């Protein structure tokens, strides 16, 4: 028996990629495989209760909260805030090294919101997407601007960039928002040195391209397909994986009959050319606003005894889809929430069963609500625990589909909604669970009265970190879900905690600062949440230096 385990472990190690972070937190999702897992274990389940605050950095811009993932490279932390401000901070002391304020055009109307979800750092450069749809490169030493590119006129497209770019092999890969506007989405790659565009992948195929037939009339021009969260990358396959959001209009599909490729799909693109290698569409012809938008977690696991290279993606509709990342073959799907009535289930080939669609001019209860069975705040995969930790939200909405004519760059929703006070099952609220990534079998569930809207961080110290709406940043035991430690940060948590080390000391850093479109929706169910204070600060913790 022990020999068998050892053999299995060795076999696993052979094909397993290492997606764990160590001293640095170099990419948005930790490594490019988006595990949000660190091999650091100085802070662990036995001592996490002794964590103490070592420094706090106030950004000074509270609007929209602080939604970023800090990037840490060689002892320097890079954080972006609302209104495209970037700070470089000494990661051990909290001292500001430089700041950069992007200048928006005068009188500019911000679409969606002022927030920014992070920068990317590579080869001595810092990369940022902006509210007026620029991509900017800065010198990591001093914050000096090196280049900027205006991807599209934001006033015209009704789109912008809030996600962190992904930088690999000298390429800056950036998505775009605009999925709820009459807009056609894309993924762009730029040369990290010069800012020259290297390729563009349109998320909606144009005339003559494969997949164009899944749209009727001119609907492809305004069909959404935003790429509003950061993609992943597999170095061995040289593929970059991006999630494509909902088709527009969100709730009404009368003028876009067909599957509407590649909306609500994971697309695997060749890093060098941007050419589509494969796609997996989770929700054909979406009429619920069920973006495939969130992180693509790349993990290697045996399925039915066979080692597989997998990709896990939580769909906004509350189902988690697992596919083979070499070819897009369906492997498994499992529900994350109890309140889910837009389908009755997912069939053995990934097909959606029993679709329950919004109706034109008539209200209908749909679960989860438009806010999603989960928001964009990312989960974490711990290979040590063998668990995928993710938040989930129990809530429903009353929705009406309304036919609408698209107008370029204007909001294109195709319906209206209102959150309902009681979901179909139990109470409305949030939770954080530990799941087997393939079967969805749950090991434990931590419940909370409001949605949990901060990302999850897992470490080799068998600790799971996240934060809540009321400002508590806390640690759970990875094996039991028991709360081991918490700290009041003074404002709700909506960003992504990270961990890193400087001179052998492990630090845990979390953004604190309540905000976002979703946070704004919460008072429809919980009126008292409109009193939750905003903020914008990074809190950093470590064990006491004297070891006590």
């Amino acid at each position, binding site marked *: 028996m022990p020999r068998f385990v050892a053999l299995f472990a060795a076999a696993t190690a052979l094909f397993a990629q290492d997606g764990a972070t160590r001293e640095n937190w170099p990419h948005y999702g930790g490594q490019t495989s988006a595990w949000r897992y660190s091999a650091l274990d100085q802070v662990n389940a036995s001592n996490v209760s002794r964590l103490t605050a070592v420094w706090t950095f106030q950004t000074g811009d509270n609007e929209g909260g602080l939604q970023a993932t800090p990037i840490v490279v060689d002892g320097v932390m890079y954080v972006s805030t609302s209104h495209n401000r970037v700070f470089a901070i000494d990661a051990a002391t909290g001292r500001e090294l430089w700041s950069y304020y992007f200048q928006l055009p005068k009188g500019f109307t911000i679409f969606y919101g002022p927030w920014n979800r992070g920068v990317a750092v590579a080869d001595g450069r810092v990369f940022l997407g902006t509210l007026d749809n620029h991509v900017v490169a800065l010198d990591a030493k001093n914050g000096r601007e090196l280049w900027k590119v205006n991807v599209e006129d934001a006033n*015209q497209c009704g789109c912008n960039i809030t996600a962190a770019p992904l930088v690999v092999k000298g390429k800056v890969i950036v998505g775009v928002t605009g999925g709820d506007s009459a807009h056609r989405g894309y993924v762009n790659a730029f040369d990290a040195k010069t800012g020259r565009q290297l390729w563009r992948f349109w998320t909606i195929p144009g005339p003559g391209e494969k997949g164009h037939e899944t749209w009727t009339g001119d609907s492809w021009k305004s069909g959404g397909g935003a790429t509003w969260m950061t993609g992943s990358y597999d170095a061995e396959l040289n593929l970059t994986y991006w999630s494509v959001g909902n088709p527009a209009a969100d709730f009404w599909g009368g003028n876009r009959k067909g599957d509407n490729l590649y909306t609500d799909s994971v697309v695997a693109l060749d890093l060098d050319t941007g050419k589509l290698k494969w796609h997996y569409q989770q929700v054909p012809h979406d009429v619920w606003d069920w973006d495939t938008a969130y992180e693509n977690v790349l993990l290697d696991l045996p399925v039915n005894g066979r080692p597989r290279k997998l990709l896990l993606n939580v769909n906004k509709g509350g189902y988690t889809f697992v596919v083979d990342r070499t070819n897009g073959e369906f492997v498994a799907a499992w529900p994350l929430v109890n309140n889910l009535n837009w389908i009755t289930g997912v069939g053995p080939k990934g097909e959606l069963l029993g679709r329950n669609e919004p109706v034109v001019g*008539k209200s209908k209860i749909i679960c989860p609500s438009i806010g999603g069975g989960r928001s964009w705040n990312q989960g974490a995969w711990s290979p040590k625990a063998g668990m995928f930790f993710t938040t989930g939200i129990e809530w429903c909405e009353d929705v*009406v589909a309304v036919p609408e004519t698209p107008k370029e760059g204007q909001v294109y929703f195709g319906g209206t909604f209102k959150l309902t006070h009681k979901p179909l099952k139990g109470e409305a609220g949030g939770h954080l669970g530990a799941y087997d990534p393939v079967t969805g079998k749950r090991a434990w569930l931590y419940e909370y009265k409001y949605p949990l809207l901060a990302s999850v961080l897992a470490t080799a110290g068998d600790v799971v970190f996240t934060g809540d709406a009321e400002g508590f940043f806390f640690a759970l035991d990875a094996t039991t879900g028991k709360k081991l430690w918490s700290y009041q940060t003074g404002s709700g948590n909506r960003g992504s905690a990270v961990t890193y080390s400087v001179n052998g000391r492990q630090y845990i850093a979390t953004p604190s600062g309540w905000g976002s479109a979703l946070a704004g929706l919460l008072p429809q169910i919980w009126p008292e949440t*409109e009193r939750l204070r905003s903020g914008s600060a990074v809190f950093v913790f470590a064990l006491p230096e004297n070891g006590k």
Partner: protein
Amino acid sequence: MRRWLVLLLLPVAYGQSIGTPASVARGDKLFAQGCSVGYCHGAGGSAARSQRLRGRTFEREYLIKVIRNGIPATAMPAWGDRLTDADINDLTDYIQSLATAPINVAGGPSTEAPVSLPAEKSVDTPEEHRRGRELFFDLTRESRCSVCHRLNGNGTAVGPDITKVAAIKEADGPQVLRYGRPRTVRTFVLKDGERFAGVPAERTASKTRVFDLSATPPSLRSLVNTDVQSIQRQANWRHGNVVRGYSLEDMQTIWNYVRFVAAKK
């Protein structure tokens, strides 16, 4: 005692003095069509991305100003060019009527169709120039005119003010677009051997900002002057290479549209 009574009555009197049932009803409809949509103000102003409007008191002048002009650098757009004064008046009546409304909205979401906005904000384009405008700003093309030319407040100003160029050229439009070699384009040679065609944007004692025309859209690069070997007047760059996606007929249509805008100015 009398003062106390007046104070007590004030909220009621305030609520009653706002609008007529007809204007409030019309404002309700407009609100559902334009303000509660998407992630904006929520059904009945119940709160969403932006703040709750129900159960709050706002000054009339403030509401009118914000609806008309928007709030710069936020997500609140200016509605002044899309709504009439009567619309704004009714909308204001409706929002003020929410001051005494309970925070929770009764009933389901609205079934109103979203408000119909004019397609163009700044300049009215007559029918015969609509196609030219569409081609100029066509987001489905990566190489479209507006990537390098700003017109009517949209697009990136890499190239010169195109209305001036169009106004003075009596020549055959497509000919100019295909064979023109703009005088603003230079060849930049960097000390690391890199060479590219670019349009200088700014030059100071220490740095040079230049639009790199090697790819679309152009990248605005900030070069340290000590990294620049030379800036040459000759450039091997042709306008014809970037407009290849347009047919000759398209170019003529675009040219006519630009001349129309130039004439209007």
